[in-house]
């Protein structure tokens, strides 16, 4: 019985223990690591993956997967930046968010109406949106953005970078939606057993389309934040980010087959990814090795999580 509780603890909080372990480890190895300024840098870096991972959580809890977030991010960022050049900041951001949401919803419609598995539908969108970005930008960065647009990615409120505040707002909103609304309940139910959910009167197609639209919206938002950070929209922005986002969700203990998982786990997962990047940089580990380390960490984390089950 004691043993069982221990295993349950590991499963529930193992990821948190892992995060604390990582922070402790890097703090010992590098004295520059655990400082307020570096922690704020880590959090700002993490925010990018965190936005995507929150959206990805909705999708994966609904038993789907979204491989297109990196490409949708780039396309939304480029179109948003393009509109901004003449239309101003407001319409620029609006265009970026709207395009991201629309592409996400399109994913959902393809998945539910054409009954194409989300892996394939979003793989196609990954190519389409990346291609769209290259066509729209002609392969060149879009620059010359209004100077006040810089606030979104580089601004501060007090001493805290704005993206961190935005990340917290998004996290809290998403948490409320998942835990306190009917829609959130439906996402869990649909991902847990789509047939039983449908038989309980849930319009499961709408639920699935909505989760992908949310993922698309947050990809669009990430695209705008990234464009602001870099003061330009890069056609190659967000390449490979889908994998970081999926890794964060899975590290956070969410069941890849849907129906089970907590949003705080995703946030911790995103932080683990961010801290690994930052800490390994500080230790001057080459970026090539960093990839290897990240992969190994994912394997270890998932193995530990599974060993906790039964």
């Amino acid at each position: 019985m004691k043993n069982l509780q221990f295993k349950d603890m590991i499963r529930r909080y193992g990821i948190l223990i892992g995060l604390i372990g990582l922070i402790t480890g890097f703090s010992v190895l590098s004295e520059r690591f655990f400082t307020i300024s570096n922690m704020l840098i880590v959090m700002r870096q993490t925010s990018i993956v965190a936005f995507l991972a929150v959206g990805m959580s909705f999708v994966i809890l609904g038993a789907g997967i979204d491989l297109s977030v990196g490409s949708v991010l780039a396309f939304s960022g480029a179109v948003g930046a393009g509109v901004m050049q003449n239309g101003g900041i407001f319409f620029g951001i609006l265009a970026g968010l709207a395009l991201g949401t629309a592409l996400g919803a399109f994913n959902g419609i393809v998945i539910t109406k054409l009954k194409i598995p989300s892996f394939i539908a979003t793989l196609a969108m990954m190519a389409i949106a990346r291609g769209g970005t290259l066509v729209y930008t002609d392969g060149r960065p879009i620059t010359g953005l209004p100077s006040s647009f810089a606030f979104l990615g580089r601004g501060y409120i007090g001493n805290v970078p704005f993206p961190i505040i935005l990340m917290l707002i998004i996290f809290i909103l998403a948490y409320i939606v998942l835990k306190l609304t009917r829609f959130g309940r439906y996402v869990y139910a649909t991902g847990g057993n789509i047939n039983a959910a449908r038989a309980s009167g849930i319009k499961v197609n709408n639920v699935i389309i909505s989760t992908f639209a949310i993922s698309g919206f947050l990809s669009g938002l990430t695209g705008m934040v990234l464009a602001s950070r870099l003061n330009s929209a890069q056609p190659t922005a967000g390449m490979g980010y889908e994998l970081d986002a999926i890794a964060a969700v899975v590290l956070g203990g969410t069941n890849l087959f849907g129906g089970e998982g907590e949003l705080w786990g995703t946030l911790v997962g995103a932080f683990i990814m961010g801290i690994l990047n930052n800490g390994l940089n500080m230790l001057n580990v080459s970026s090539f090795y960093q990839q290897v380390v990240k992969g190994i960490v994912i394997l270890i984390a998932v193995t530990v999580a599974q060993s906790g089950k039964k």
Partner: protein
Amino acid sequence: MNDLALEFINISKSFPGVQALKDVSIQIKKADVHAIVGENGAGKSTLMKIAVGELLRDTGIIKVFGQEAQINSPSDGYHYGISLIHQEFSLVPTLDVAQNIFLGRELTRGLLSFMDSNLMYKQTEKILDSLKMFHLDSHLKIRDLTVAQKQVVEIAKALSLNSKIIIMDEPTAALTLEETSRLFEVVRGLKDKGVTTLFISHRLEEIFEIADKVSILRDGELILTKPVAQIDRNQVINNMVGRSLEFIFPPKVKQKEESKVIFEVKKINKERQFSDVSFQLKEGEILGLAGLVGSGLSEVALAIFGLNRLDTGEIYIEGEKVDINSPFKAIEHGLALLPEDRRELGLVIVRSVLENLTLPALYRDIARKYFIDLKRELLLAKEAQKELSIRFASFSQKAESLSGGNQQKVVVGKWLLTRPKILIMNEPTRGIDVGAKLEIYNIVNTLAQRGIGIIFISSEFSEILGIAHRILVMSEGRITTELDPENSTEEDILKFAIRKKVS
């Protein structure tokens, strides 16, 4: 006694809450076709699974050709030359006939052990020829075969494994008459080769056509084993049904005299599933729909609830014609469905008891606009728990951790919270123990008393007789008769449930 192929000696097996087999002893002669019959839940499939080692017996001995056999794991059956052919096939749809037959033990040749495809196709064809299946091409993919052909492939696979005893679990359930007679030719061919066949079937006429002997199981006990020549159809039915009703059904609630019709289906059709089904349901009435597995009753339930589209026909609720194309609509019209497979359609087993209980009611009752009223949710869930006396440790417990009976009550509870007018219950007592069954019957009576119209679907005829006000029997997609439970017996129901279409 050297001519015995298979001997069961005092086999017992129990599952939590049920004694599935009690001291069953059967002797099966070499090269016989031996039929095993019994009602659903009589223990036929359990015994067959024990014979091949898919289930482990609690006590008892199995002898194969006179020798005591150590059959303790699924591969042991093959080892002793016993093959079980399931209703669901274990073939790989994307591979062809020969590839399936030699799956996992491909023939090879040469130093590098390349697969010897030629030899495999040749051997496959030899086996198929011996089964007189000249038309079956060994290069065809399994997914392109008919159900009957797949069955033959399974048989061929068993033969290629040198099986001397082949067990078929309801092989004809999905076959047409013509395919059935083709299968029987194959079975007779097996007999000529000295292969022993165990044959489970619901269709009595088939047993008289093909079997040498019949063993009747009831409630986990062997009732008798006799040559079919020495027994007639009625005797078989009487012995299957028996006088076994040990649990007492709660007294029936009287229906109100002047209760009005709240639900009616008129000539509903769905190709290959059911045809021209019409019936009425009154307020507070418990309408029993009886039929064997495959009768089309489950399909009717799914279609009424909007999970399957009807081809033609009309549905009326309180006299008004309705178009139900989704469960959402069905619930809106006051329908609720307790599905046959509660893990697949009834519950989200990875989620909590609370979330399962309130899922369908969230939309209309518990949530205000978008937000869930958590207090009200818990209050309603507690009401349902109390009313149905559902037993669990905590509302946040996962539904999968509950016992079958309590899971079923959670499904009942989730529908009660939608305050339905019509409740369809499909096999509501399947897979739950006797005590929980009785509780379910009591709940059904209480709900009927409250005026809910209940459609009670079951293949356990004793419970239908015990609970329903009126019984409709269905066979092969059609309603074959209406019976009054007060003046009917299980034999009466069974007669109409297995009646062949008069065409």
